[in-house]
């Protein structure tokens, strides 16, 4: 089973709406990163949130982290067509391997 996974395969919204992508994980972590991957490109980091942080913002993006429920969310406000992408969460385990554990991603489509 996945050690990190986004809760939905796909979401679609209309431009201007807000949307939230959720992620759950199964290990104790030191940090969680959100990445975005546009079609034909490699992933690009959006936000890194540490285990002692509850919320982090970056422009129209807001990430939350709840270590008690082992979950995170990424919210995007005032969505634009160019936000269309696959969104991944990636966790950094706090013990054992340092490797980033990527979820399978949520495809977000923002329609005009």
């Amino acid at each position, binding site marked *: 089973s996945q050690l990190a996974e986004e809760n939905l395969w796909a979401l679609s919204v209309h431009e201007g709406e807000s949307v939230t992508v959720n992620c759950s994980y199964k290990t104790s972590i*030191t940090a969680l*990163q959100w990445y975005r991957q546009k079609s034909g490109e*490699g*992933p690009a*980091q959006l936000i890194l949130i540490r285990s002692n942080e509850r919320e982090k913002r970056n422009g129209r993006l807001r990430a939350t982290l709840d270590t008690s429920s082992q979950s995170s969310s990424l919210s995007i406000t005032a969505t634009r067509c160019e936000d269309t992408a696959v969104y991944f969460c990636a966790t*950094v385990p706090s013990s054992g391997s340092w*490797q*980033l554990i990527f979820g*399978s991603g949520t495809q977000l489509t923002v329609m005009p």
Partner: protein
Amino acid sequence: GGIITQTPKFLIGQEGQKLTLKCQQNFNHDTMYWYRQDSGKGLRLIYYSITENDLQKGDLSEGYDASREKKSSFSLTVTSAQKNEMAVFLCASSIDRGRAEQFFGPGTRLTVL
């Protein structure tokens, strides 16, 4: 800023063929990675390297070799391509391993006939 380039962008091979993918970065990062991305799945680590001439196996290293002859370059070899295999191979680099942000190249899309 910096950039990661991967060559080739598309790679078509035959079953059993040995195939090499190349990656270059100009961030001057110490750590480089190779990931495999299958449709609908997360990225899986094949190999990583923390410095020139260092190689460390990831969870998916079987069937692959890697080489880090220079700090700026990291190559991956598929030792024997599997029929009908299709995946995207992503190269990344970071200042160090662990929590550091990883910067990714655009990927090499492999198709095996």
